[in-house]
């Protein structure tokens, strides 16, 4: 081939034209970063190499701003023999018995979901499912923590229905039950909704897969969808226009998902794992082939020779740098011994999935510690790099941190001083307003769009406190997961806010009777270049790491999403924390709803006057200020242990954690769940003036509402007292269809409660078509 015909940049050309100007700044690289690349290569990078470095060294892939902080999750890690794979892998893997492990992780897909809500959310689900699949696991459930702008803002009517349909469209079609999530509204998310997605998978302990591209001579196989131009620039600011000024077509950064293809990909991968046919596997997500090729070879210390033109393309006109940067969905990279190649291709064919050998693993040159990744395009070398330089040698920043200027004033402006209702009528009216408010109202309009039954192992799902799935049909072994985050608390105190999210997720898992064992997290923040945001981030990570150490459960994985802001305004810091717990026998699960008239109702934990950052302050006074509720992790631990033992001994009929909206909200939810009323008498010391209000709406942590069947009360209270866990008898469960009554204060029929609680979302989003374009107000 003569060089005249070549319309793409090659290594040879790069050597010949060292001074050619390159658009590194447009690709998001700093001048010193570009200089580093030239140093590493000993020449200017080719167009393809430049694209690869710019993606791999982007914030999203390199964690350059967060790395120095995230280290604490390792440094402060509590000892746990359960963790088989932790941070650094696609997802954390936790042994739940001698031979069964689970893997779980949460990730964000925030920006794409704002641009194209349906596809953005759908591909968010698809991406996290492939991470779980890459560990060797069968994905068995998904969850979706979501944050939107104000519920009544016209653009929320564009974003929310699309996001929900996308989460459902992809998850339902994959056959994964959706077992929980969050729907939270706050104006801070107006131009920047948060779409986080969690997947959990199950694998035999001995089937854990590795991503290492070990064994020189082994074949590199790309399996799944064809590669197209979609998503180029999704990860970094890479846009093909900057390469190709002539045909300036803006490429979309949103990909379209194909859940059917993903389902076939899952089934074929699981067959490959079961037959032990592969050496390594890696999913393709952000940064596509670039990330998969470099990570698999770098982690093994090997090299690769890849013939890029063998990659099946959807659009034949793609150039090599586009193929390398494409974020086309539903693809996996496999490392296969040559003798197994035919068997692998055969399984792919059985499921109707494309599988194509694209290269071979190579050994390091004699004297070298690591191999090189060389990529050719129709015979010409377009990439020749040490793969480790892309994966591990990216820039690391200790960005400046500074407490936000407004924080002292904000913290001084306490909600405890706001006007409060002081009589029964006022409380009754307040209760009805509170349960109808967007954050506290019934979320069925959203969750009914998700399949919760598929796979037949869903024991608890939304609106229960945690999702609980059966893992082993014979023994009843299962896992419970809850995801939580309260950004208002985190805004007021990010250290405490992260711990409160952890505490809430821990509590939600514990009330089902499960034993919390591991943590994942998705840290959604504004721009790391803003010292105030960076301070929030640092505090949140420190809080979470300290909290996990104190609770004795390790962080096994997670995700960071920066740049969540509109103009200069960052979202509230939003650490979303997921806790996974193990249930030895899901038949002993504890649901949240009252279910027998005459059962005793107890409140566990202590109530304090804690209204700052509360849902009440926000709904009634549009107020955010003060300091969030006190964190009491030892108390959470005692509560969890007590609930676990009570569940094992069959002493409790229901348990429901208290969080947003306090005791009042918990009483309403437990009543409406199965349609049983409740008669409550407030403790004498809380019965006068505005104290009943405080008791009902304070958001003190470490509390749960529990019902105990007649005859077990003594045993139950003794169990709590042994653990120094405050226990207060509040009253009894009333008859089916009765009312919620607070003696001396008010009484509301369940019908009236239900009408207020369920009406809000259908009223806001019931009409099904909204415009496609962003709506300003």
């Amino acid at each position, binding site marked *: 081939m003569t060089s005249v015909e070549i319309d793409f940049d090659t290594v040879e050309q790069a050597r010949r034209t060292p001074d050619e100007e390159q658009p590194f700044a447009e690709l998001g690289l700093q001048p010193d970063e570009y200089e580093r690349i030239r140093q590493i290569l000993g020449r200017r990078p080719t167009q393809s190499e430049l694209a690869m470095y710019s993606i791999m060294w982007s914030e999203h892939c390199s964690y350059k701003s967060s790395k120095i902080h995230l280290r604490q999750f390792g440094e402060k890690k509590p000892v746990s023999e359960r963790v088989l794979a932790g941070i650094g892998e696609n997802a954390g893997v936790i042994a739940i018995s001698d031979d069964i492990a689970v893997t779980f992780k949460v990730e964000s897909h925030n920006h794409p979901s704002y*641009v*194209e809500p349906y*596809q953005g959310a759908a591909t968010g689900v698809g991406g996290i499912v492939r991470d779980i699949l890459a560990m060797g696991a069968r994905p068995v459930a998904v969850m979706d923590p979501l944050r939107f702008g104000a519920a009544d803002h016209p653009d929320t009517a564009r974003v929310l229905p699309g996001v929900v349909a996308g989460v459902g469209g992809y998850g339902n079609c994959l056959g994964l039950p959706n077992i929980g999530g969050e729907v939270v509204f706050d104006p801070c998310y107006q131009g920047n909704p948060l779409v986080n997605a969690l997947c959990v998978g199950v694998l035999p302990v001995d089937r854990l897969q590795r991503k290492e591209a070990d064994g020189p001579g082994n074949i590199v196989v790309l399996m799944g*969808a064809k590669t*197209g*131009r*979609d998503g180029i620039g999704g990860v970094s600011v890479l846009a093909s226009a900057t390469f190709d000024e002539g045909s300036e077509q803006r*490429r*979309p950064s*949103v*990909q*379209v*998902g*194909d859940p*059917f*293809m993903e389902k076939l990909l899952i089934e074929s991968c699981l067959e490959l794992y079961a037959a032990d046919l592969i050496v390594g596997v890696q999913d393709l997500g952000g940064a596509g082939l670039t990330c998969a090729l470099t990570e698999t070879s770098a982690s093994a210390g090997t090299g690769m020779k890849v013939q890029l033109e063998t990659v099946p393309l*959807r*659009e034949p006109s793609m150039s090599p740098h586009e193929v390398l940067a494409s974020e*086309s*969905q539903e693809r996996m990279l496999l490392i296969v011994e040559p003798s197994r190649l035919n068997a692998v291709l055969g399984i792919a064919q059985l499921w*109707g999935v494309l599988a194509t050998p694209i290269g071979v693993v190579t050994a390091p040159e004699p004297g070298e510690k690591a191999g090189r990744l060389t990529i050719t395009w129709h015979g010409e070398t377009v990439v020749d790099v040490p793969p480790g330089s892309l994966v591990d040698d990216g820039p690391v920043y200790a960005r400046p941190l500074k407490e936000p200027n407004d924080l002292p004033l904000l913290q001084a402006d306490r909600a405890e001083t706001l006007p409060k209702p002081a009589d029964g009528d006022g409380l009754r009216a307040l209760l009805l307003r509170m349960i109808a408010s967007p954050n506290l109202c019934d979320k069925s309009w959203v969750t009914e769009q998700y399949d919760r039954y598929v796979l037949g192992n869903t024991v608890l799902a939304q609106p229960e406190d945690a999702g609980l799935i059966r893992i082993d049909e014979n023994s009843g072994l299962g896992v419970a997961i809850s995801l939580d985050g309260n950004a208002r608390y985190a805004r007021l105190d990010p250290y405490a806010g992260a711990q409160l999210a952890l505490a809430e997720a821990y509590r939600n898992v514990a009330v089902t009777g499960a034993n919390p064992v591991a943590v994942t997290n998705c840290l959604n923040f504004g721009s790391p270049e803003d010292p105030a945001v960076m301070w929030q981030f640092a505090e949140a990570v420190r809080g979470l790491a300290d909290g996990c150490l104190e609770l004795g459960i390790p962080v096994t994985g997670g995700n960071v999403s920066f740049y969540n802001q509109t103009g200069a305004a960052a979202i509230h810091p939003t650490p979303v924390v997921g806790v996974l717990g193990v249930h030895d026998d899901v038949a002993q699960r504890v649901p949240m709803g009252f279910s027998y008239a005459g059962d005793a109702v107890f409140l566990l934990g202590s109530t304090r006057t804690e209204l700052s950052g509360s849902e009440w302050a926000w709904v009634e006074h549009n107020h955010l200020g003060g300091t969030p509720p006190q964190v009491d992790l030892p108390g959470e631990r005692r509560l969890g242990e007590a609930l676990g033992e009570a569940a094992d001994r069959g002493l409790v009929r229901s348990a429901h954690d208290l969080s947003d909206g306090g005791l009042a909200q918990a009483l309403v939810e437990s009543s409406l769940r199965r349609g049983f009323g409740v008669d409550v008498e407030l403790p004498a010391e809380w019965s006068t003036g505005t104290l009943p209000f405080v008791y009902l709406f304070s958001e003190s942590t470490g509390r749960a509402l529990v019902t105990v069947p007649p005859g077990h009360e003594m045993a139950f209270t003794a169990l709590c007292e042994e653990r120094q866990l405050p226990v207060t008898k509040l009253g009894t469960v009333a008859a089916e269809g009765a009312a919620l009554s607070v003696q001396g204060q008010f009484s509301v029929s369940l019908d009236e409660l239900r009408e207020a609680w369920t009406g809000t979302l259908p009223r806001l989003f019931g009409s099904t*078509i909204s*415009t*496609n*374009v962003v709506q300003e107000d």
Partner: protein
Amino acid sequence: MARVVVDVMLKPEILDPQGQAVAGALPRLGVSDVASVRIGRRVEIDFSGEVDLDKAREIADKLLANPVIEDYTVRVEQ
């Protein structure tokens, strides 16, 4: 009564799983010479009075198509 037809198709570079699935099923109908199938939406808008093509274009742009991933054409049907 006058009718405007809006055809909405995914942009050529965007994956079309629907079309792909149909193309994959054709061999079973004994069809082997189809290179590609793309599936989009056809929207028929009947105006009660005069056709308002500008209005139709606005409807297409704001409601019927998502310009991030879809192209559309608007025409009056004869």
